[in-house]
């Protein structure tokens, strides 16, 4: 009952095809959970179901004891259920500072105001600077997003999410597409996430998963086939079969 966030029997059918089957999991505050699984396992579908981009065929999403399944994507964000995107979705003409400012203003319900200046609020500006500083984005704060490195764009995705002051954060492959030289910066950012925040991370980079996550959930063909601590994942035969077999092969080749 003390769970901050819970999904119960989440199921999604596209036509006759079940892309999510009876997924249940719970996360207390401060959770660091990794969701892994082979390509096509339904990980991003799961995130879309949880955040309300898709409506489930069955099941519930519960946040803070409140059933949010019937709510749209926007309402869920406002209740503290926030995601990042697997492929960054940023406004190429705007600067990181503008992205985060807009997000903070939105959180304060001030983003639809016409009779105020975008940069007119010193408190907001202070918060934005703080966030950009935490993520090491200050030096590019006033460059257009289209001109900054992809690793920095990924950090900006996280900055936007944090600016919403989430309770539950879903990170959809935060290091995808980032050159390996930049992954340490992403990892650093992940380590510095607020401790009370419940984080669910989808990731392919197993080293990152093992360092970051306290618990791991493995998804295959839309179903949870394993829940447990990272050290047990590799030993599980079903996981090996569905996923780590390939992974282990890939590693031995590399």
């Amino acid at each position, binding site marked *: 009952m003390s769970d901050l966030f819970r999904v119960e029997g989440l199921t999604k059918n596209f036509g006759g095809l079940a892309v999510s089957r009876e997924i249940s999991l719970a996360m207390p505050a401060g959770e660091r959970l990794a969701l892994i699984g082979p390509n096509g396992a339904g990980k991003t579908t799961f995130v879309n179901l949880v955040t309300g981009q898709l409506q489930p065929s069955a099941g519930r999403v519960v946040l803070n004891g409140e059933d949010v399944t019937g709510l749209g994507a926007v309402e869920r964000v*406002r209740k503290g259920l926030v995601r990042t995107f697997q492929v960054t*979705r940023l*406004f190429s003409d705007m*600067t990181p500072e*503008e992205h985060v400012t*807009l997000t903070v203003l939105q*959180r304060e319900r001030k983003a639809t*105001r*016409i009779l105020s*200046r975008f940069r007119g609020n010193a408190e907001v500006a202070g918060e934005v600077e703080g966030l950009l500083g935490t993520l090491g984005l200050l030096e590019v704060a006033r460059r257009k997003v289209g001109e900054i490195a992809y690793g920095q764009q990924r950090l900006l995705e996280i900055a936007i999410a944090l600016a919403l002051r989430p309770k539950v954060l879903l990170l959809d492959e935060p290091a995808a597409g980032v050159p390996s030289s930049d992954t340490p910066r992403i990892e650093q950012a992940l380590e510095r996430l607020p401790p009370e925040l419940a984080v669910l991370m989808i990731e392919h980079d197993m080293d990152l998963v093992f360092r970051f996550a306290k618990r791991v959930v493995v998804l295959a063909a839309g179903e949870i086939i394993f829940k447990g601590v990272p050290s047990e994942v590799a030993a599980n035969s079903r996981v090996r079969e569905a996923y780590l077999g390939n992974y282990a092969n890939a590693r031995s080749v590399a």
Partner: protein
Amino acid sequence: MRDVAGIVLIVAAGMAGYWLFPDNLALLTRVIAVALLVLSIDLIVGYCGVATLGQAALFGAGAYAAGIACVNGVTEPLTLIAIGALAGAVAGLLMGTIMLRAHGLAQLVLSIAIVQLFHEAANKASAYTGGSDGLAGLTVGPLFGVFEFDLWGQTAYLFGLALLVLVFIALKFVVSSPFGMLCRGIKEDPVRIKAMGSFVFPVLLKMFVISGAVAGIGGALAAISTQVVGLDSVSFELSANSLVMLVLGGLGTLYGALVGTVIFMGFEHAVSAINPFHWMTMVGALLIAVVLAAPGGLSGLLEKITASGKRTRGGRA
């Protein structure tokens, strides 16, 4: 600072027009009225990314509202402008509510259907609108009770110029407000905006209302200055032409809307006096050239040329 300079430039250009073409003030006033319409399209197309070919519905709503009020005894010009703005805003609310239900092609078709419906309605309601003969006989009282609207159109022009500058300044605030930034975000990626926790529909609807008010002011100005309201003020042709002006000047910048209007109408006046079909060929060729060679329009081209040396600055829009 740049904005102050820009506004000074607009006033200077306006006054230059006043001194240089004292015999063409009626045309120049018309340019201002249409410029307001083009600005209103820019708010929707350039800042929100919603394509419309029916904006004249809002312009016409303002023009007819002001015209009908005037015929029925409201002659104070500022009141008429306010009535036009209100009617445009209401029409914008209606149009937005309908158009924002759809996306893409369906949305474009809805915008056309709405302007055509307005056109037919104005034609049919001839008891109020004068139908295809137009609504004539508007007698507007003096501005502030002092300045009569004279035969040469001096008062009308200066009044229009002042209105344009005021609206322009107001819109500068709108597009650089948090709301304006939110609209720019929606234009680029509505899914991202939703993931930031903001609804999309009410924001766009709000912009439709603002846009409607601006178009309505333009319509009312046209009604006051020409003292006639014709069916052409709610036509698909006017909608399409003003979109062309905007694209010519450059989408998503308020200056582009003004530049495009002035150049388009200036050439139209000069060339179509010779042969209207040459004019159509020219506009068509120009449009194709802009699409192929300068998607940012003339102002985008200008910016590219002037900014080529100082690319590092960036950021501030």
